[in-house]
């Protein structure tokens, strides 16, 4: 089969791999019809997540048809499913507590040592990510082996097109959980850092949950335009003093809850970010926490901090004083997709949630390397890339993020060679 393969920092290629087989009783094999590039794939692409090896198949947002099942799978051949990016057994302490991304049993025992040393506890298995999370082959491919297929995959009715439900696998559920963990209450202002897919979905979720005001902070005009179309207010941090603006936009009180949808590769020159950037570049496992620092400083006293953005290492200049003295609550973590996906599917079916507004490009899996490059370097226009394993090389269609906005076009990187060469 063909699959998007990691070759090194800023070097991914579509290679041929052996087709996956049923290996364990609860497995299923899915023939993928649509898969997407996630913002966290860009952390892998940028080489800031440890434990990604040459030859690994990436991709953790994917859906398709069941083509083969193991004897203990509850799926049936022919069913159309979305597959959560978190691999969860359904039987351990954490799964029974609906903490699916903390599953004890999905990361192979010999892969758990690194994260257990680094974090005190091992991580659970994720598709197409790091070997710290199992090194499972991902879904930017023609086929994928899905372990515990009786727990994760959700069957999708045929009348819903792929693009509408694909993001249940990760970013929609992640944005929803971010707003859920921020706890939206009557009259609340929720501020969201990062107008990428997760930030946009978090902002939409906060509005659906009844927030009075949602303010999205970014510097890409087109991405801010998408946020504004959702009914959010926007702040361009390159034009505006964010802390002052948030105070003035909330009657001098500050946002009730803040959401960091940026994560470990924060941009900008404030908030000690250049120091973090330097340390990250020389490869000593540092996270860039500029956005998080600003969020913690801006949230009101007694406020809530929700962190869907990915972090993996260590950080310093972490504002413990502000956290303690303002009495903040911090909630974070990889998404418990299986906790939310049924409810979110219903909301999609009922038209309560728009899931396709952020797609900028739909293209062949064969052109995935071009998709990565542009998603990484043309972030203004390339807001979300969907890959089609069945499309012939070169076929590409513009998504609603381009056709329905005024700023949706722009230059693009069209080279096939790695950018760093």
């Amino acid at each position, binding site marked *: 089969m063909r699959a998007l393969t990691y070759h090194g920092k800023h070097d991914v290629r579509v290679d041929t*791999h*052996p087709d*996956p*087989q*049923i*290996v*364990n*009783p*609860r497995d299923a094999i899915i023939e993928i019809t649509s898969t997407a590039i996630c913002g966290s794939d860009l952390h892998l692409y940028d080489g800031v997540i440890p434990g990604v090896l040459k030859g690994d198949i990436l991709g953790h947002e994917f859906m398709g048809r069941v083509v*083969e*099942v*193991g*004897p*203990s799978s509850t799926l049936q051949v022919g069913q159309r499913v979305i597959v959560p990016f978190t691999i969860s*057994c*359904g*039987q*351990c*302490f954490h799964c*029974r507590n609906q903490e699916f991304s903390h599953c*004890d*049993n*999905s*990361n*192979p*025992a*010999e*892969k*758990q*040592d690194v994260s257990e040393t680094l974090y005190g506890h091992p991580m659970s*298995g994720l598709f197409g990510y790091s070997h710290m999370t*199992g*090194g*499972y*082959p991902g879904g930017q491919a023609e086929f994928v*082996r899905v*372990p*515990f297929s009786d727990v994760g995959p959700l069957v999708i009715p045929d009348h819903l097109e792929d693009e509408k439900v694909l993001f249940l696998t990760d970013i929609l559920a992640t944005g929803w959980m971010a707003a859920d963990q921020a706890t939206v209450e009557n009259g609340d202002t929720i501020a969201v850092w990062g107008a990428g897919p997760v930030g946009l979905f978090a902002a939409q979720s906060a509005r659906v949950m009844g927030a009075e005001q949602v303010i999205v902070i970014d510097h890409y005009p087109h991405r801010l335009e998408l946020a504004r179309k959702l009914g959010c207010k926007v702040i361009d941090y390159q034009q505006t003093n964010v802390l002052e603006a948030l105070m003035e936009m909330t009657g001098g009180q500050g946002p009730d809850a803040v959401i960091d949808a940026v994560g470990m590769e924060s941009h900008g020159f404030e908030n000690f970010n250049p120091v973090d950037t330097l*340390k990250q*570049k*020389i*490869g*000593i496992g540092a996270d860039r926490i500029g956005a998080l620092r600003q969020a913690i400083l801006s949230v009101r006293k007694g406020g809530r901090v929700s962190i869907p953005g990915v972090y993996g290492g260590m950080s310093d200049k972490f504002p413990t004083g502000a956290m303690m003295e303002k009495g903040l609550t911090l909630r974070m973590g990889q998404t418990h997709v299986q906790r939310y996906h049924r409810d979110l599917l219903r909301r999609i079916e009922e038209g309560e949630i728009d899931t396709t507004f952020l797609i900028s490009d739909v293209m062949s899996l064969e052109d995935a390397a071009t998709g990565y490059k542009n998603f990484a370097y043309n972030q203004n226009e390339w807001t979300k890339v969907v890959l089609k394993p069945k499309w012939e090389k070169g076929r590409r269609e513009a998504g609603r993020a381009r056709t329905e906005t005024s700023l949706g076009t722009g230059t693009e990187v069209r080279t096939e060679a790695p950018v760093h060469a």
Partner: protein
Amino acid sequence: MDRTRSSRLSEQKLVAAAATLGLGALAGLAAYSYLGPSASQAQRHAKTPRLTDDAPGRTARQARFGDYAVTGRSVTINRPRQEIYAFWRDFSNLSKFMENIEDAGESEPGFSSWTIRAPLGQTVKVKSRIVSDRPGEQIAWRSTEESQIDTEGKVMFRDAPGGRGTIVETIISYKPPLGAVGQAVAKLFSAEPSVQARRDLKRLKMLLETGEIATNRNRRGEGGKYQQQMSPV
């Protein structure tokens, strides 16, 4: 051209990293020698009688007892006590989740025989007398004189609080061949009991809770001995 440039770059990176880490360590050391506990404070500290704490002995900073290295691990498994005991008591099951047990069984009643994988392709044979067998509670064993290593151990089963299943606790003490050096070498090959106990108990938990042992391998036959014989359905 390009190659020299990139190698120079990575050299610079290395120097920068070393400088950042090294300077930090130096500064820390200087600060500690200046601000750290004074001699009298350290002496006072050493003279204060210690309270014997509640932690298991194997978690002591110096977990060696005479010539014996002691290691142990606990895991909570969401299955009934009797079921886990019965699974363990059938010693032929041990090789299903223990990486270094090539073969195990009850060679004669009251004795168990194990073939254990050791570093560099060696195997070690151990014959143990079962010195305690309390159904649903514990199994303990001690190696006989015919064994190639001197070891004893036990596994205990007790109900986890709040209906969380069973806490399985293993304790193994053994005399490492070649003492501390042998232990260090074994660790290097991941064949040392403390490394093994950790992974083995995780696999036991996987097998009993989910019916299978997690693998990232995509093809049958690549998953090693833990993968069940599967034929396509």
